[in-house]
């Protein structure tokens, strides 16, 4: 695995690739799942400060990777609603490789609705978020 990563022009200089691989060395037992997260960049400071984003946070490095270690799932301060009101704090989307579409939801629990969307729609401009990342997770193949 280490040599395969080192030989890959897409992977060799990315951080944490080897550490992110499943422990099981047999890749036929994995399934790679792509997902996305939308969120707001300024997650610390006062409510007043958190009305606006922070252009220095959660930006991609030269390889396109984003350090998510500071993500605390804190929503944007809702300036229209007054102090201590916060917008929806994040949105996950899951890529369905069979249909080429993205599955996401309406943020309501109960009465949750799941949407099947194009990437363009799932990523449409929303006042809540100013960042979007894409990630890969590994699921164990059981059938």
């Amino acid at each position, binding site marked *: 695995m280490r040599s395969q990563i080192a030989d890959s022009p897409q992977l060799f200089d990315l951080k944490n690739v080897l550490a992110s691989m499943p422990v099981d060395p047999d890749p036929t037992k994995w399934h790679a799942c792509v997902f996305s997260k939308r969120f707001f960049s300024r997650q610390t400071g006062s409510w007043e400060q958190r009305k606006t984003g922070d252009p220095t946070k959660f930006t991609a490095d030269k390889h396109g990777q984003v350090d998510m270690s500071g993500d605390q*799932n804190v*929503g944007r301060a809702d300036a229209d*609603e007054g102090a201590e009101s916060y917008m929806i*704090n994040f949105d996950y989307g899951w890529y369905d490789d069979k249909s080429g579409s993205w599955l996401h939801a309406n943020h309501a*629990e109960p009465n949750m609705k799941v949407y099947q969307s194009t990437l363009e729609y799932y990523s449409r401009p929303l006042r*809540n978020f100013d960042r979007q990342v894409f990630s890969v997770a590994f699921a164990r193949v059981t059938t």
Partner: protein
Amino acid sequence: MSLEQLIDRTVTLRGIAVDDAACAIVEVDDLGRNVYLVELASWGDNGGKRVEVTGTLRYRQIGRDAAPVAGAGDQLAVHGMVGKRYVLEGATWTLVA
């Protein structure tokens, strides 16, 4: 008249169409407040345009409160929005000039 005085009444409001992660919203003219059209997911190509909306105005929570997670350590983040919002139920809308 403020929105608070119109709660539980059928109202017609004008403003700008904006998309929120919860649903389509209207930034109501002159009031500096947003009204959530919870039955409409998105304005689509009409985002940013002026609209007139009619429906029953409520003031309530949408979904669940997001739990405070800053400094929460290993606690799972709870997804949602904090605070009540003005909601327009049974809303209909049209574009206006």
